[in-house]
Structure formats: structure tokens, C-alpha cells
């Protein structure tokens, strides 16, 4: 106890690191908006330059590759609608990550919650059948997705809140269990979700079109508007509700939260449920509109929307406003991949390109957190 009294005074809050070469690095309290925009643009540009060197070295013309990248993600209505369809679940899973991370709950469980959300949503949609009114099916399946995701997240949330289990481990394990469960429903059992008419290859039962969201243009549906609407709601809620005030207090200092009379374990559970609900809605949207059947293949492509959402949330620095454009950008990068392969750029280069851009954007954030000065 007396160590606190006898220890030297704590170092001043604004620590500096002098590199001995006339440059110091010091933490910023807050980065101005203009700088944030500048750094984001600068690091994307930097990434494109580095990637250009790489492309040139591998025998591709950088400019034409970039051109076809833009074309294949924004160039045509078809391409753009593909990007938006990818961005929709990504916005929701990024929000799921951001909400929890703001309270320093390091969940990586959005992927599992996404899958369970998809199971619940497709279950309701299949149950209601093709004859039910579209609005009822849509609302019911979205709600089921949210509930399913929240319930799945509640397992890890209760563990973290009441039993102090590590949420990183528990959510990761729950992701594998969710994936195994979905596989079991389609491949391992004659479950309600499996299509009994397809005897040769196990498939999910097709979901009727009355579960699909109304179209927006080309292939895109109003899902993107829904996701942006959820983001706006989340932004407002994080700013103006008591729930979010408590979330900020717990995230900043759990002991201060107890001092403020906040039930911290309950708060952790409730934030995990909110995060799970967001991921679950993403699952509901994808299963009803994109795959149109519960099927482990194709439901959650690539790294998985849950994990990619973590990347998006980190790139957006957990800013809800930032998540929407970043998610669209990342979706564009992802949807450009297959198109690029068609133009002859090898898949490996495409993946490196995507990784490089994300890496440099992340590295650029150094300048938002720290100030570099000459002295």
C-alpha cells in the first residue's frame, strides 16, 4: 500500500520520446478533423504507390490494374451493386465490433453471431413460408437474426461479466461452434433447414422471395440503406443515451463505473448482446437476400464478415461515422478481387494488394495518435 506513497511521482501524462535526432514524438489529445481526412487520403495514396511498385515488379501495368479495380467495384451499376451488397453486412459487423471495443470488450465473436443470426432468420423465414406477407417475413427474420446473434453473444458476455472469462478466447471458440452447428444442420442431419428434395448434394432449403428486402437498383436492395440507418441510429444512441454514457464510463475506468453506481457485469452483458444483435442482423440480411438458403458455403465468404468487420472498425478508429465509408471501401476492395483475377492478375497479387492497402491505412493512424515535431 505504502508503495504508492513512496514511489516517485508518476511521469507526466504527455510523455515524449526523443529519438536523439532532433525529432520528438508525443501523444495527441485529439486529432483535428482535417488531419484525419488528410491522413486517410495520404495513406491510401501511399498504399497505391507501394502496390504499384509491386505490380510493376510482377509484370502488370499498375495503372490498368487500378483502372479495372475501380471499374469492377464502382464502374458499372452491376459492379457498384455488388460492392453495396458486400458493404451492407460489413457495416453491421463493424458496428458490432466498434460498440464492444468502445467499452474495451475485445470480442471477435461477430462471425459466430452472424451465423447464428442467419440460422434464426432463415428458420423464421422458412417457417412462415412463401404465402406470408413480405413485410411480416422481413421484420420477423430481421428480428430473429438480432435475437439469435444477441443470444449467442450473451454466452460470452455473461462469462466475461460474471465469471471473468476471457472474451477473446470464448468468442473465438463460439465462432467455431456456430460454424460447426451450421454445417451440422445442412450436412450432418436431416434438419429443418436442409432441402429434402436435393438428394445428391446436401443443400439448404430455399428461402422464398417474400423474405427479400425490396430492391434499390440493379441487384442492390435497400439493405445498404438499412445498414446506414442502423449506423445513424447507433451514432445517435452512442451520443445521447444513458446506456452509452455508462458504456463510456466502463470503457474508460471500470472502478470509476462502480463508483458511479453502474452494475458493470450487467453492462458487459448488455453491450455484448447489442453487439451480437448487430452481427445477427447482418447474418439475417445475407441469408435472406444473398444466399437465399442456409448454406455454410458462400454464406460467410473470405475471412468472414465478422472478422473483416473488426478490420473495418479498427480502420475507422471505432468511429461510427467513419465505419460507413471505410466499409464501402473495403467491400470495394473485396469485390474487385474476382474481377481482377479475370483480367489476368494472379490471385496472390490481389490478396497482397488488399492487405497492403489495409496495412498502410492502419499505419497512417500513427499520425493521428501522435504528433511528430522537430525540436
Amino acid at each position, binding site marked *: 500500500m505504502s508503495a504508492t506513497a*513512496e514511489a516517485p511521482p508518476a511521469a507526466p501524462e504527455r510523455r515524449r520520446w526523443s529519438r536523439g535526432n532532433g525529432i520528438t514524438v508525443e501523444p495527441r489529445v485529439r486529432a483535428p478533423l482535417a488531419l484525419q481526412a488528410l491522413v486517410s487520403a495520404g495513406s491510401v495514396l501511399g498504399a497505391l504507390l507501394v502496390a504499384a511498385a509491386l505490380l510493376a515488379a510482377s509484370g502488370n501495368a499498375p495503372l490498368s490494374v487500378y483502372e479495372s479495380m475501380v471499374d469492377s467495384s464502382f464502374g458499372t451499376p452491376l459492379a457498384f451493386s455488388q460492392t453495396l451488397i458486400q458493404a451492407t453486412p460489413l457495416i453491421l459487423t463493424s458496428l458490432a465490433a466498434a460498440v464492444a471495443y468502445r467499452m474495451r470488450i475485445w470480442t471477435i465473436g461477430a462471425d459466430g453471431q452472424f451465423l447464428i443470426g442467419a440460422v434464426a432468420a432463415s428458420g423464421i423465414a422458412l417457417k412462415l413460408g412463401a404465402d406470408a406477407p413480405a413485410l411480416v417475413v422481413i421484420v420477423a427474420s430481421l428480428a430473429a437474426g438480432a435475437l439469435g446473434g444477441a443470444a449467442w453473444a450473451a454466452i460470452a458476455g455473461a462469462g466475461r461479466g460474471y465469471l471473468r472469462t476471457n472474451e477473446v478466447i470464448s468468442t473465438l471458440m463460439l465462432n467455431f461452434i456456430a460454424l460447426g452447428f451450421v454445417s451440422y444442420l445442412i450436412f450432418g442431419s436431416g434438419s429443418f433447414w436442409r432441402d429434402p428434395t436435393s438428394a445428391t448434394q446436401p443443400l439448404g432449403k430455399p428461402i422464398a422471395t417474400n423474405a427479400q428486402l425490396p430492391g434499390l437498383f440493379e441487384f442492390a436492395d435497400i439493405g445498404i440503406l438499412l445498414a446506414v440507418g442502423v449506423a445513424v441510429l447507433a451514432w445517435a444512441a452512442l451520443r445521447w443515451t444513458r446506456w452509452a454514457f455508462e458504456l463510456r464510463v466502463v470503457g474508460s*475506468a471500470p472502478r*470509476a463505473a462502480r463508483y458511479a453506481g453502474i452494475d458493470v457485469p450487467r453492462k458487459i452483458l448488455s453491450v455484448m448482446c447489442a453487439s451480437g444483435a448487430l452481427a445477427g442482423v447482418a447474418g439475417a440480411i445475407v441469408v435472406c437476400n444473398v444466399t437465399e438458403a442456409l448454406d455454410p458455403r458462400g454464406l460467410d465468404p473470405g475471412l468472414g464478415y465478422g472478422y473483416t468487420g473488426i478490420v473495418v472498425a479498427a480502420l475507422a478508429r471505432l468511429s461510427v461515422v467513419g465505419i460507413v465509408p471505410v466499409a464501402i471501401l473495403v467491400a470495394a476492395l473485396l469485390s474487385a478481387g474476382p474481377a481482377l483475377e479475370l483480367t489476368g492478375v494472379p490471385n496472390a497479387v490481389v490478396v497482397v494488394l488488399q492487405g497492403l492497402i489495409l496495412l498502410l491505412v492502419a499505419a497512417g493512424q500513427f499520425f493521428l495518435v501522435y504528433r511528430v515535431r522537430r525540436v
Partner: protein
Amino acid sequence: MRGVSKSFFGVAANQGVDLVLQAGEVHALLGENGAGKSTLCSILAGLYRQDSGEVLIDGQPSRFRSPQDALAAGVGMVYQHYRLVSGFTVAENMMLGHPEMPFSISSRSLRESARSVMDRFGIHVDPGSYVDDLSVGEQQRVEILKLLNRGVRVLVLDEPTAVLSPGEVDALFTAIRQLAAEGRAIVFVSHKLYEVTAVSDRVTVLRDGARVACRPTKELDQRTLARLMVDRDLGSAAATIGAAAGEGSQEPARNQRGAGGASPRMESPRTDIPVLEVRDLVVRDERDHQAVTDASLRVYPGEVVGVAGVAGNGQRQLADAIAGLLPAERGEILLRGNEVTRASVRERVKQGCAYVPEDRLETGVAPGLTLEENLALRSYWQSPVARGPFVSLRAMARRAEEEVARFDIRGGRPGLPIRILSGGNLQRAILAREISADPAVLIAACPTRGLDVGAIDGVHRLLREERGAGVGVLLISEDLEELLALTDRIIVLYEGRIVGEMPTAAADRERLGLLMAGVEDAA
């Protein structure tokens, strides 16, 4: 060690301290919190480097640049916070960093060599268990074994008994005496007098970073030691010590400043309802130690009750339990006559309980939140900030504006986290928040610790104002000057028990010092 000085950020922690250790002796280092004991030990063990002065080992000046250098010279230290690698076994921890460790070794031969070390020194811990599963006493034994295995001749133990149970303390003392008998020098840091007299051969007393005495232990009684430790009126001249020891036992010197700001209305027993009453309170802390035992106290409106005690004697847990942050295991807590023993933090706030926690930056405020948000931290769930499920940012800002003006909180800017405030302004913000809730009782735990003189004055003024406004104040402090100047009554806490209570007018530093050090009330 000769003439060792060290300062941190301009604050002197050690000033020209001499310390001579002889082989085969247990040398106690005694002093209040902040007297410079840990700093001196850390210099000896190579963790810090002195600003001036020298450290001589066997008469040879040595300049340790790291704890490794000190270890090579035979000086090892057991820190207050143990430096064991969690997730490793006892044997692994003992052998880690040993220069003769082979690159690769089987866990069995590791355990065997650990066991042979234990046999050699007669100190035993199961070498195969993981250090996380050990009790604090066992962990301490591992720390000591680790150093003995490196062949230390000077063993520094920084407050080794602070976390031990009485039985473990006895075992430690036996081990200490044996290690000294084998020719090692043991430095034993403590502020508990009976331990010093029980185990040490010689004692060096530090006060305000300077050495005030160095005598054989048997020449000093506990009363003299206490006085050397706390009484600033006694000069540091060694000549006065003997004389003081003689008269001290019969006629305790009265402290001139004792009455301070207190008013003499303590005499008659009061009949009004105390704003805070605690009856036979038992509190366990987060680590399941019984931190407060059978504590009973009353705070009446318009009085300041001081809680004196060396840090870590249950003050924080007592305050936390009253404020509702720690559950009471037994006993009762009443605010304005209403029982709140099981009530939530918010219920207690509603009953008029204001709390300035000891841990300013992690409990008193949420450091990442803004000043406005922090000023609403203890009332955001009610009007005017709460609007149904929402919070009114405007109400928050308006309130912040008022309190910034009224309490002169400087350095904050809207939208920036509160952690950018200086310590004094941060504490003013916390006090502003707690006081503007119009409390019945204000619990202030170490409210001036680490603040500069001007900020301390400001805090004291606010506490006096609250007392004048009829608020009951419970002031927990390690600073006797502060308690003597501000309080009407003083309670002394030692190892979680209330060992003494007296009107401030009748209190003097010596008696408080003895009580704080665990010596039975001689009055």
C-alpha cells in the same frame, strides 16, 4: 552507503543518507510513508541510481547500473510487489536468470536443483507448483530463495510483513535470523515498531528522506522509535534522543498545534442523529483479506472526524464500504439514521453520501471522459441530466459551467478528456461534483496526497466550508499535520481495527504515532 541523495522531479527522496550494514546483522530501516525507505533500498539494489553519494561493498566503491550489477556484487532485494513470472513454476522462477543455467534443462532436474537450494537454506516451497497458486507468504519465500540461490550476502526486504498473516510473519522472522546467523546482512524495512524490536539488531530511522538515528535496537524502546519516526519537533540531532527517551515514557510532550481548527464542542455526548454511523463493520477486500474488523464510528453534522493510520491498514476498504463500493460482510452502516448496509451506491448518494476516493484517476473520475461528463458521473441517472433513457448534453454543459466557475477548475476544455487536468484541478473537480450534490456526509480519502501546497490549501478550505455548512466529514489521511489541523476528533486504524479514538484537542503526534504503529494505547 555514504551520503546518498536522490530526488524525483525535484522532490528529494533521500538527502545525504548513510547506511552501514555489517555481516551477520539484521538492520531495520524504519520510517513513515514517504520517508525514503524504498528509494534507499532501490538504490542499494541497483534499481535506481543515486544523484550523489556512494555505495561501498566490502569497502570498494561500486556503481550499480542495474539490479544485475547489484546481484553480481551480492546485493539482492525482495520488492513489495513480487517479481515472479506468473504461469511458471516455483523451480522455474527460482532458476530463471541464473547465470549458470544451461540452455536447455529438463523440468525434473530443474525441480531437483531447486529442492537442493531449499534444503541448503531450510526454506521450503513445493518446487513443482505454479507461483499463481501460492499464498503471498510462499511467493515471498520463492523470492528470497531466488536471491539466496544467486549467492547474495546483502538481502533487502522491503516491507516484507505488509501482506503476511501473523503465522507467516513468525516463519519469516525465523528465516531472517537464520540467514543473518550465517553471515549475511539483512535490511528489514518496516514501519511496524514491534516487528523492528522483535527481529532487528540495529535500526536506522529515516524521516523526510534523511537519517535521524542509527542505534542498536536494544537501546531504543518503541515509544522512542515512534517519536523518532513521526515527531518533526524533535530535532534530528542524535544527542536529544537519549534525553527524549527518558522523559517520554512518563510525560508525553503535548503538541502545540494539536487543537488546530477544532472547536471545543466535543465534551458533552451528542444527542442528535449522526449523519454517518458505522457499527461493528467487517469488510473483506477484493482479494478476500479481512481488511476491516469490527469498526464502529459516528460522524455528526458539522464535525470533521479524522481517520489516521499508515497506508494499507484498511482505510480504503472502510471508505469503499461506507460508499457502497465494497460489500459489508457484517455490521451496519447508517446514513442520517437510515440503514444502508446493503444499499446500492446510488441509494447511498441519494441518502447524502459523498465520496472522494483515494484513487483519484481511476475511481474518482473516468479519465477518458470529458470534464462535463465526469461532473455528471454521480448524478447522471437523475434529473436534470437524465431525460428518460437519454442524457441531456446541455444540462451537463450548464452544470459544468457553473461548477468550473464556482470551484475555479482550470485547464479543462469542452470535449477534451479530464485526464489533461493537473492533480489539483482534478481533485477540485471531484470535490465540486461531490459537494454540489448537497451531501449530508462527505468521505474524503487522502484528498491532498500528491498535490502542491496551493492545491492542498484549496482542498482544506473546501473541507472547512463543508464542515461549516453542517456536513459531517470523514477525513482519511496519512498526514498527521493535516488531521491535527482540520479535524475535531481522530480515530486511529491499525490492521483494520479502530485502536484509538480521541478529541483532536487531546491528541498529540506521539500518541497517534504509537497507535498507528500498533503499540497498545499507553494513555
